[in-house]
């Protein structure tokens, strides 16, 4: 119970700013380390005496967070909690945050079958970074250049399937792919003169079918 109390305190002050300042002093942290809830904005009162009320705030420590929830730092901490260690870099590109993890020495484990574990890692990181955010940021996590490699593979796959479709006149299909992966195939074949690509399947398990352009299917 004591621990709970240390994570969350209520303080008073002349203004909200003062109250927050008092809380930060008591907790010994910076403003970035806490979440602030204003309980009472206080009031100066009529002649600064009559009816004046202290401002009250509740300040909650973002538990375990270091100086900030900077993306690279968060991913480093998450990796180390999982028993991995690696270089981590992050950069913002338009409305997305790209996080690049160097080689961990056990990349396969972190990537998982068909990138499944990496997808889960990315989902959790995205949820953590977007918590309480006013606008949603897209988060992309890559490990040891996996996504780049996979993109190359998929583009190769697209052109070999396209070749097969146009030489045999038959439709060919990929294995089930994630939306981001299907997009790579569609884009690779967008301007192909002989074939067209479309998705087949329900929900999250869809395949890309590549067929000759003149099959007349809609």
């Amino acid at each position, binding site marked *: 119970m004591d621990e709970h109390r240390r994570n969350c305190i209520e303080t008073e002050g002349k203004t909200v700013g003062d109250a927050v300042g008092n809380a930060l002093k008591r907790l010994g942290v910076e403003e970035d380390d806490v979440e602030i809830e204003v309980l009472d904005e206080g009031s100066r009162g009529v002649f600064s005496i009559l009816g004046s009320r202290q401002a009250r705030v509740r300040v909650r420590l*973002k538990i375990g967070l270091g100086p900030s929830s900077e993306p690279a730092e968060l991913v480093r901490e998450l990796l180390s*909690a999982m028993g991995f260690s690696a270089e981590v870099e992050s950069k913002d590109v338009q409305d997305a945050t790209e996080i690049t993890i160097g080689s961990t020495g056990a990349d396969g484990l972190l990537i998982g079958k068909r990138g499944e574990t990496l997808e889960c890692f990315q989902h959790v990181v995205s949820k953590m970074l977007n918590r309480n955010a006013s606008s949603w940021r897209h988060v992309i996590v890559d490990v040891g250049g996996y996504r780049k490699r996979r993109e190359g593979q998929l583009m190769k796959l697209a052109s070999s399937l396209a070749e097969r479709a146009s030489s045999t006149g038959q439709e060919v299909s990929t294995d089930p792919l994630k939306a981001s992966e299907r997009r790579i195939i569609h884009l690779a074949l967008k301007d192909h003169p002989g074939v067209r690509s479309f998705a087949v399947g329900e929900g999250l398990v869809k395949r890309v079918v590549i067929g000759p352009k003149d099959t007349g299917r809609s």
Partner: protein
Amino acid sequence: MKELIEYIAKRLVDKPEEVVVREITGERTTIFELKVAQEDLGKIIGKHGRTARSIRTLLSAAATKMGKRAVLEILE
């Protein structure tokens, strides 16, 4: 691994002080019971259980790295 679950859970919920993880060590498999505030349950489970599944996958990866097996149970 307990730290991993705590780390993730506390950063997903609104009430991190109510996150409790209990570790039940078995012969081969360790079970982790995660308890969060009632109103935070949805944040841990996610749309179509996606967040819960993701946490379980990360736990498995961490366990495998240590040559162990781990199961996460989310208490309601």
